[in-house]
């Protein structure tokens, strides 16, 4: 590794902090330089959507960064056994809040007068949403729910006298322990006290995203508006809202997997034999029931957390790019041919 690269890594925040790998993935994402979001040139809601795309996605990325940094600064020993219950769902709850606020603000946009609205059917919530984005959100939500159900199902209470291993919490009557090596001992960090807030966040995210998309899909359309312009505007709104929610979802899924993987790697060595004053060897180790997959889950968590933050940074950046393109076009500044081509099909 060249010396300057080592210097750069020295100044990066700890690797557990969401922004660290998030920034790296964000930079790498420009291999695909086409914008992933665009602002509508018509419809009267461009500035509101620009605020949502820029400030909203940055707020969610900041929330993910803040809670992951707090987790790094927190004591290594989790004394309660469920200390991180509020940190992991925070990025998703931030995304829920932003989408809910966006829903309210976007509803205030200009509407055609009653009697001048097109007759149209009641549209399903996903009419203007990108099918691929919804699929990604669905897969992330299912992975998160499966993890939460699994981690809740393996939880049990523990007798006060233990034995406890790993990051041992002070005793609690709550089911926050998983049995260690078929009941040999207990490790804290699982159960509903750890994950109920994340369950609630996933449910809220589903409800708020569906409500927001359905409200926008059924906004009245002027009787004189062209169908294609309406579709284009609605698709752009749906895309920004869906991507912000996916960013929060990925960040929370990543944090949950980092936690699940981390407690799953707990290993205790027995029958220690000192071969010198500083060195010892253990004759056998005991581990958690999913030790073999704990490392991949933990590393996958790092990747997903970073992917969520990178996506949010990309939404903010591409919203700024789109806003600048629109302002250039409005002021009549001629664009380079390449820029014009990028505008033409940017949001696809």
């Amino acid at each position, binding site marked *: 590794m060249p010396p300057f690269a080592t210097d750069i890594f020295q100044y990066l925040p700890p690797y557990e902090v969401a922004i660290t790998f998030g920034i790296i993935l964000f930079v790498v994402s420009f291999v695909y330089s086409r914008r992933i979001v665009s602002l509508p040139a018509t419809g009267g809601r461009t500035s509101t959507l620009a605020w949502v795309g820029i400030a909203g996605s940055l707020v969610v990325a900041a929330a993910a960064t803040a809670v992951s940094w707090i987790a790094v600064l927190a004591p290594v020993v989790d004394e309660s056994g469920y200390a991180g219950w509020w940190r992991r769902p925070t990025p998703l709850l931030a995304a829920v809040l932003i989408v809910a606020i966006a829903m309210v603000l976007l509803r205030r946009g200009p509407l055609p*007068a*009653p*009697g*001048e*609205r097109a*007759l*149209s*059917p*009641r549209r399903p919530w996903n009419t203007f949403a990108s099918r691929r984005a919804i699929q990604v959100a669905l897969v992330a939500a299912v992975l998160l729910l499966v993890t939460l159900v699994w981690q809740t199902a393996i939880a049990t209470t523990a007798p006060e006298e233990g034995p406890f291993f790993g990051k041992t919490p002070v005793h609690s009557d709550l089911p926050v322990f998983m049995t260690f090596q078929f009941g040999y001992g207990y490790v804290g960090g699982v159960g509903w006290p750890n994950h109920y807030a994340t369950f609630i966040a996933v449910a809220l995210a589903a409800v708020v995203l569906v409500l927001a998309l359905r409200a926008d899909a*059924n906004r*009245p359309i002027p*009787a*004189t508006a*062209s*169908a*294609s312009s309406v*579709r*284009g505007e609605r698709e752009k709104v749906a895309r920004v809202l869906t991507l912000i929610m996916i960013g929060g979802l990925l960040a929370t899924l990543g944090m949950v997997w980092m936690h699940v993987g981390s407690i799953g790697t707990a290993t205790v060595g027995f029958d220690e034999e000192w071969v010198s004053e500083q060195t010892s060897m253990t004759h056998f180790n005991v581990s958690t029931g999913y030790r073999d997959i704990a490392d991949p889950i933990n590393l996958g968590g790092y990747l997903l957390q970073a992917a969520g933050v990178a996506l949010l940074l990309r939404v903010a950046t591409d919203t700024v790019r789109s806003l600048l393109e629109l302002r250039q076009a409005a002021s009549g500044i001629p664009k380079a041919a390449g820029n014009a081509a990028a505008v033409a099909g940017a949001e696809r």
Partner: protein
Amino acid sequence: MPLGPRSAEDVADLFRGAIRSGQLGDGERLPTVRQAARDFGIAQATAAKAYRALEQEGLVITRSAAGTRVAPGASRAPQSVVEQARVLADVAEGAGVSFEDTVAVLRAVWPGVEPVEHDEPGRPGVP
């Protein structure tokens, strides 16, 4: 074209026309009574009265969970066909293809229907 219905019968007439013309397909969901009232600038009771009239004529079916939907056979085509027709109209309009050319393309790709011959290719916007 501004709609501007004032009475329940006016509103029912609009939906009747939309259903029979194929603007709304079989099984397609109508706006909620509240939404219809807002769209037409009328009272909710007036919109509800219009929906009841359509239901009595057998043009729509109201179920509490599923809302009010166009009754089977009331429209010219089922929901899936009308939805795809809307997509075709969106795409054609977005691509600058005229209504006449779009219909001509539809005729040409429809099995068993004689396509319309042109001396020269149609140009968008040229009558």
